[in-house]
């Protein structure tokens, strides 16, 4: 039940935030903060109290029939991968609320409504194990995001919002087709028509059907990730969105693409995916290099960071299709650390924008002398983005590359060259903003550039702590992800063996009649209890 609560709190919180605007302009902020803090605390609690059993990676699961005649159910399950993604979602969610505290001053209630609903959609995507419901949540994240960009964005916001919507919607429809195809093929084979992820896992296809359906899923995930050449929505959307929007886009929305690859493409198509693997890895390498080259010449701070995301997400697809534990652990780490480091860079861009009212780095420079605290934070995340050891991104990239090396030497060599290009754009970013001559002194109407205030430090310091922690002692995260990763790989290495469903063989599971509202199974030390 706790999984539903996570989503319900966000959705109800969103509505409350919207309504509470009538009380005072500050009220939606506090409502929003509270509505993200509670799920965050709950997820931490889950992380501390649950652990995967030896036979099944699933920590929690839930199955409420919804439209039984079509095989649609309110099915949710939580494993290590989902748990980590949820932690990231709520952590960045809190920061997104905090950065919007002063930045957003018109239609505050509606803004936070959209923010919380995007988060709800994302949380839903990470939790649901019913493909119909998955598609529903996939759309739920899309529309409020569209509003965020379109209403609170920068000058070119309408163009960016349309572009974002069209790209994700078009690719999402292809995924819907694939989901339906999967539904009917499975139904015809077994006689049970269902959207249940766990039942669909065992489906066998003709090679053509498998390839076609896989490309349907890939369309949605690769556009979302994004992979070159489907990336061009991203720089516009990222740079035009308000700070919170950029943080959520880069930190979380992109990760749903990566998550989709791990959760659906790899286990559903264990025979078709390896055929596509060399091409996917090639796409990853192209993305790494292409994004890095483009990032180098950008003059818009947020656009620059956006292209670094394209480059970093190349590592994700490279690692996913390397099919080994090292690479997949690297991918999971990359999802988390990239969320933090790029989120932080967007937040810093937001801090600078709120002071300078420009994103043009040609008008910046030399800020270290006036804002050294901000400079140190910038330096740390610039270093994270170029993969400096000691910070989380290094672990992610190194594991991905070590894993990818086992799969394909040459592509890994080119991916590694990406590290040099990353150095070039990262250092340029640092130079143009905080080093060099103070750009403010040349202006007659030099507006002051105050250093970070308390609220801003409160945003920045947890991110620094998190990225350092992940760089020096990532084991808790790796341990959490391990059972899920091992399972995906089992499905891959032995295509015939069905993936272990959450209904663990050694534990009785209550399937309650439809009129009973909830069933809830949680694992503690491997034993299921019902509450």
């Amino acid at each position, binding site marked *: 039940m706790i999984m539903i609560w996570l989503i319900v709190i966000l959705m109800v919180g969103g509505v409350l935030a919207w309504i509470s605007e009538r009380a005072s302009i500050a009220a939606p902020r506090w409502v929003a903060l509270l509505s993200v803090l509670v799920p965050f605390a709950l997820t931490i609690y889950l992380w501390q109290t649950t652990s995967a059993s030896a036979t099944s990676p699933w920590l929690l699961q839930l199955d409420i029939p919804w439209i039984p005649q079509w095989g649609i159910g309110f099915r949710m399950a939580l494993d290590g991968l989902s748990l980590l993604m949820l932690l990231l979602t709520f952590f960045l969610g809190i920061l997104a609320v905090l950065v919007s505290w002063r930045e957003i001053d018109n239609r505050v209630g509606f803004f936070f409504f959209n923010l919380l609903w995007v988060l709800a959609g994302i949380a839903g995507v990470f939790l649901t194990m019913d493909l119909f419901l998955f598609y529903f949540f996939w759309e739920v994240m899309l529309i409020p995001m569209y509003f965020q960009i379109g209403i609170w964005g920068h000058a070119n916001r309408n163009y960016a919002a349309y572009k974002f919507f069209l790209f994700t919607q078009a690719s999402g429809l292809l995924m819907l087709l694939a989901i339906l195809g999967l539904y009917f093929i499975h139904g015809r084979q077994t006689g049970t028509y269902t959207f249940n992820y766990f039942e669909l896992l065992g489906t066998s296809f003709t090679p053509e059907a498998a390839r076609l359906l896989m490309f349907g899923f890939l369309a949605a995930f690769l556009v979302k990730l994004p992979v070159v050449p489907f990336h061009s929505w991203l720089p516009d959307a990222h740079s035009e969105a308000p700070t919170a929007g950029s943080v959520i886009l880069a930190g979380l929305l992109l990760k749903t693409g990566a998550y989709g690859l791990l959760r659906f493409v790899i286990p559903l198509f264990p025979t078709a995916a390896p055929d596509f693997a060399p091409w996917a890895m090639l796409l990853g390498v192209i993305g790494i290099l292409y994004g890095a080259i483009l990032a*180098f010449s950008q003059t818009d701070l947020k656009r620059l960071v956006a292209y670094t995301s394209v480059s970093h997400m190349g590592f994700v697809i490279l690692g996913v299709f390397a099919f080994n534990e090292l690479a997949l*652990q690297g991918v999971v780490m990359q999802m988390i650390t990239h969320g933090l480091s790029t989120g932080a860079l967007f937040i810093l861009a937001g801090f600078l924008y709120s002071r300078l009212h420009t994103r043009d780095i040609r008008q910046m420079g*030399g800020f270290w002398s006036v804002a050294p605290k901000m400079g140190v934070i910038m330096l740390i995340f610039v270093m994270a983005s170029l993969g400096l*050891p000691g910070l989380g991104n290094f672990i992610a990239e190194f594991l991905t590359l070590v894993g990818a090396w086992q799969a394909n030497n040459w592509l890994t060599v080119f991916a590694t060259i990406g*590290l040099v290009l990353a150095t070039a754009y990262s*250092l340029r970013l640092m130079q143009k903003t905080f080093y060099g001559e103070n750009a403010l002194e040349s202006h007659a109407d030099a507006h002051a550039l105050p250093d970070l205030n308390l609220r801003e430090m409160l945003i920045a310091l947890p991110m620094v702590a998190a990225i350092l922690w992940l760089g020096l002692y*990532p084991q808790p995260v*790796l341990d959490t992800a391990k059972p899920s990763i091992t399972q995906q790989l089992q499905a891959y290495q032995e295509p015939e063996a069905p993936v272990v469903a959450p209904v663990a063989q050694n534990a009785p599971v209550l399937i309650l009649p439809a009129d009973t509202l909830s069933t809830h199974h949680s694992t503690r030390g491997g034993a299921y209890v019902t509450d």
Partner: protein
Amino acid sequence: MENLLWLIPALPFAGALLLILFGRRMPRNLVAILGAGSVGFSALITLLLGFQFLSARPDFYVQQVWTWFDVAGFSPGIAFHLDALSLVFVFVVTFVGFLIHVYSAGYMADEEDFARFFACMNLFVGSMLMLVLADNLLLLYLGWEGVGLCSYLLIGFWYKNPANGYAARKAFIITRVGDTAMAIGLFILFQTFGTLNIQAILSEAPQTWPVGSQKAVLTAFLLLGGAVGKSGQLPLQTWLPDAMAGPTPVSALIHAATMVTAGVYLIARTNVIFELAPPAMMAVAIVGAVTLLIAGCTALTQYDLKRVLAYSTISQIGYMFLALGVGAWSAGIFHFMIHAFFKALLFLCAGAIIIALHHEQDMRQMGGLRRALPVVFWTFLIGAASLAALPLVTAGFYSKDQILWYALAGERGNVWLYLAALVGAFITAIYTFRMVFITFYGEAKTHVSHPPGLVMVVPLVILAILSTVGGFIELPHNFAHLTLFSDLLQPVLPGIAVDETIGESEWMFQTLAAGVSVVGLFLAFLFFYARPAAFQETITRSKVTMAIRDFWFSGWGFDKLYDMLFVRPYVYLSKLNKADVIDEIYTGMASLAETLNRALSRTQDGVLRNYITGVVVGAVLILTLSLLL
């Protein structure tokens, strides 16, 4: 006692952390005490551990602080490994590092960003200690990259000048090119051995890879790639001369105690792999030989005092590479230690001069400083004598002589390598004393305003003593046969076999080497003190000599070449595609849709006549088609 090991790198890191967090609010004295003190305590612990190590003579101490991570059996630890090789490096890094820190307290006294400076310096020393103490290659890589970061931060310390920023970025990016090669080497090592633990790899490698096997050679070359990047060797040497943009103590730290010696350490540390890859060994020797000549010639033509020293570092590290390449492992490490003493000394002296002359670095504006700065003169002279390897009295003589000897008589040595080293020694003597004569003799050109205080002088004196007596711990076997240093390293580094046929004539070659450096000294005296005008005229008279001088002055055109081959094309390509050509496809689709929309909407013009025509034509068409088909 061994469990104090982790403190050696941890103390400088802790110092850096405190300075980053609270440095701005601390009084300057406290900053200096914290900055120098943290390294000083590391040096003390090194001393304690060193004594224990020398008396107990274990093979190594190892201490695991925690497991960094554990994925699929890949579990590098935050773990430290102290053996004789790392002990030498730790000793140099902490002691020379400490002296440089003390000196900096005086040198940077008027600097605004005092705390930031010391924070970066501490981080630098900490990273270097991590590098030399790491028990696995991934942790070594952490130190390796950390050193790169700190060099970037310190070279660009005076960030307001964009040129400094450029030099800083250049250093980071060029060394990262080497690091990338090294990273790929690590991938191969991990794939082959399933671990990155250095000792495990070194003991497994000879069983897994036969001598000269393709993988061993490839791996050794990739590691060499990393080493040439950090150590400023051909072809990745171009960043090092520009690294002079940082404050002078930083140069001393980069050139003597940290950073550039990392490559030497890496090759010595992975000596087993290199021994399995003879072509790579040859490459190391050749890289060293060629680099020492090229950098030596360039040093002859420079006028910036610090640039001369920078090229001399490149050249001297060339000697170390040469030694490693011919398998004279402990000779290479011995030269590293001696070089650290005298190069730190020379840089710190240069710093004292530069401060005394209001940040003047051009030697042509100096002169006659012998009387104005006597202590600096005498200590600089000692350092210079050691660099030029003046016979018998200097430490540099003993360390360089070994290398020359093994380049010829070692089993992997040959006469060409020896000649390169010998010519290099000759050039070294000339440019070294060129520096001495131009700077300290002749007429004074700039007024001395700021003689160095005690804080700066004491480190100079200590380093001058070390530059002299340091050589006496390892004497040639036909001389006094003292081998304290190579005995110490013997359990870690393999010994070297000497070709017996030339073994007899060692004294002859020693005399030759000694003669060469004395002749070099004399020529420098002639050209730059006795008859500078005549020499200048000879050079300028001929177009050929001028062209050669300009070519050498530019560092043999490497900067220009790389600029043309890599930098410009990359920047051009990147700028060209700033608007992202792939986006054109999608905007093209959008405008196609708009054009079609415009074309079709023109058919709905509201004129009834046109509609009727359309209907009739359509009907006729359909009827005709249905009749025909």
